[in-house]
């Protein structure tokens, strides 16, 4: 346990070294929120308007909730894994008595903690500027399910990202491509730009068979009370299935990857 506390500590320190960089990263996040916020704000400039079951209050709540969800789920250092495999730095970790997965998960937690602090701060400021309506969930069951699905989203994102990092074992110079590919899917099919439920029902059903909605969309929907308790439970279970599947896939890829790892770079 001490091991991972130490990793957390050094990871946290590392983030602070490039303070300006980190702040610019947060600025980027804020810009992205602006895009979505203003877009929907314009669409709902007529206050009585209802589109796809969303009114102004609901959509703006969605966007603000999304900002926090993304800070928790998608802020991650694990994209660096592909680079470490490419330049051979992975070797340093293989030589040490530490689990590479636990190591990176700990680093992610450190990054998420820092990002969350900032996100909360930003959201508060944006709240005062843009004054969107915000909804506070009070049902304890839903809150619990929300937390479970959020944690599930964190784990699932970690596994998915790591799986795509694994491409670097077979294609060391091409580590970024697969991750970029993943990002596109997560952004669009995960509810990053628009709530999934504005799409036609048939497409929605298809989407819920993929892992993407379970990253931050489903947790947010559970929080907002858009799904009843039974449906929320169902969603959590499906998310759980995806976690198991991706975890298992990752393990297999890792073992296969190590067999071909050339430890290049020296």
């Amino acid at each position: 346990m001490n091991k991972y506390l130490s990793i957390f500590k050094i990871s946290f320190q590392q983030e602070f070294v490039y303070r300006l960089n980190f702040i610019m990263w947060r600025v980027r996040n804020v810009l992205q929120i602006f895009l979505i916020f203003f877009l929907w704000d314009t669409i709902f400039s007529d206050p009585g308007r209802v589109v796809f079951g969303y009114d102004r209050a609901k959509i703006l709540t969605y966007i603000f909730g999304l900002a926090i969800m993304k800070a928790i789920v998608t802020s991650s250092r694990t994209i660096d894994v592909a680079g470490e495999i490419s330049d051979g730095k992975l070797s340093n970790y293989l030589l040490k008595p530490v689990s590479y997965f636990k190591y990176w998960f700990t680093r992610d937690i450190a990054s998420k903690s820092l990002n969350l602090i900032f996100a909360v701060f930003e959201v508060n400021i944006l709240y005062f500027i843009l004054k969107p309506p915000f909804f506070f969930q009070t049902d304890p069951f839903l809150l619990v399910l929300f937390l479970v699905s959020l944690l599930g989203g964190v784990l699932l994102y970690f596994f998915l990202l790591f799986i795509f990092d694994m491409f670097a074992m077979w294609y060391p110079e091409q580590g970024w491509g697969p991750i970029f590919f993943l990002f596109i899917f997560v952004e669009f099919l995960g509810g990053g730009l628009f709530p999934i439920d504005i799409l036609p029902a048939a497409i929605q059903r298809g989407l819920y068979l993929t892992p993407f909605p379970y990253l931050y969309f489903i947790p947010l929907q559970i929080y907002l009370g858009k799904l009843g308790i039974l449906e929320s439970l169902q969603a959590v279970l499906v998310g759980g299935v995806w976690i198991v599947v991706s975890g298992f896939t990752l393990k297999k890829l890792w073992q296969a990857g190590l067999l071909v790892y050339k430890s290049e770079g020296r």
Partner: protein
Amino acid sequence: MNRAIIVDHLVKNFEVVERKGGLIGAISSVISPKKKTVHALKDVSFSIQPGELVGFIGPNGAGKTTTLKILSGLLYPTSGFTQILEFDPWERRPEFLKQISLVMGQKNQLWWDLPAIETFELNRAIYEIPKRDYNENLKELVGLLGVEKFLHIQVRRLSLGQRMRLELIAALLHKPKILFLDEPTIGLDLIAQKTLREFIYDYNKKYEATILLTSHNMDDVVDLARRVIVIDEGRILFDGILEELVSRYAKEKIIKVYLSKEDDIKRIETIGKVKRLAFPQVILSVPRSTVAIAAAELLQNFPIEDLTIEEPPIEEIIRKVFRGGIKPKNLPK
């Protein structure tokens, strides 16, 4: 346990994709890529006793680094048997990893943007080193390598020599019983090299650590290793005492001479075989036993401005050895 490292009939192959040049070549490699097998290690066997300091030498691409990587569990052998301290390195058990260390010249483990002490603390936690041992080890290593002043400076700001010393500390904090050093003196100035060599020697003596060292630097080998294993093109060519290697296979020494004025090449050829002639430099090779006489003769009879006597380059010895077609194994008693 009488053997720390056992390697038996180790084989390692790599698959490489062949690239053709130009735009057409690039497009054709998309459609039908050509694969080639590189036989990095063909049949390697040796064993090392605890506490030995062994030099592992050979030309570039001979398979030294590949061997070290297999011994430390990074690469999977194509076939063959390896055992270290009664562990299979590939399994990478924590108990195994806590007892070994691999130091590669260019590969850093220190976190670039933070002071070295932070990485040390991290390693302490990872290797689960008790606090008291950690403090003792740290103090000792820092003292031996003289890096007290650099512990709290961002690593990126330090010079290569300073960084290398700190990297070494990071690799030794957990007092590994087995140390793999891959070209440890590469890129260092002469004084830093000497300091490092003395340190490695002391470490070996004091902690009875088993050390396997690869190097292109003859001084590293001569100063440190009593026993050398010579590898070339994936095979062991020699395994024995260094003096035996040199005396058996380097029958000659090199004399480098700087002439102060031009002289008749034929006359110089009477002293020894001229290997290279580029006025004012002449490089000769003479039999080992008569090198002193040859040097004296040169100094007496020729307009010499400077003269040095050198060992032939290690590659030459090895190439020569291979041409001689010796048996692959030659173990000491």
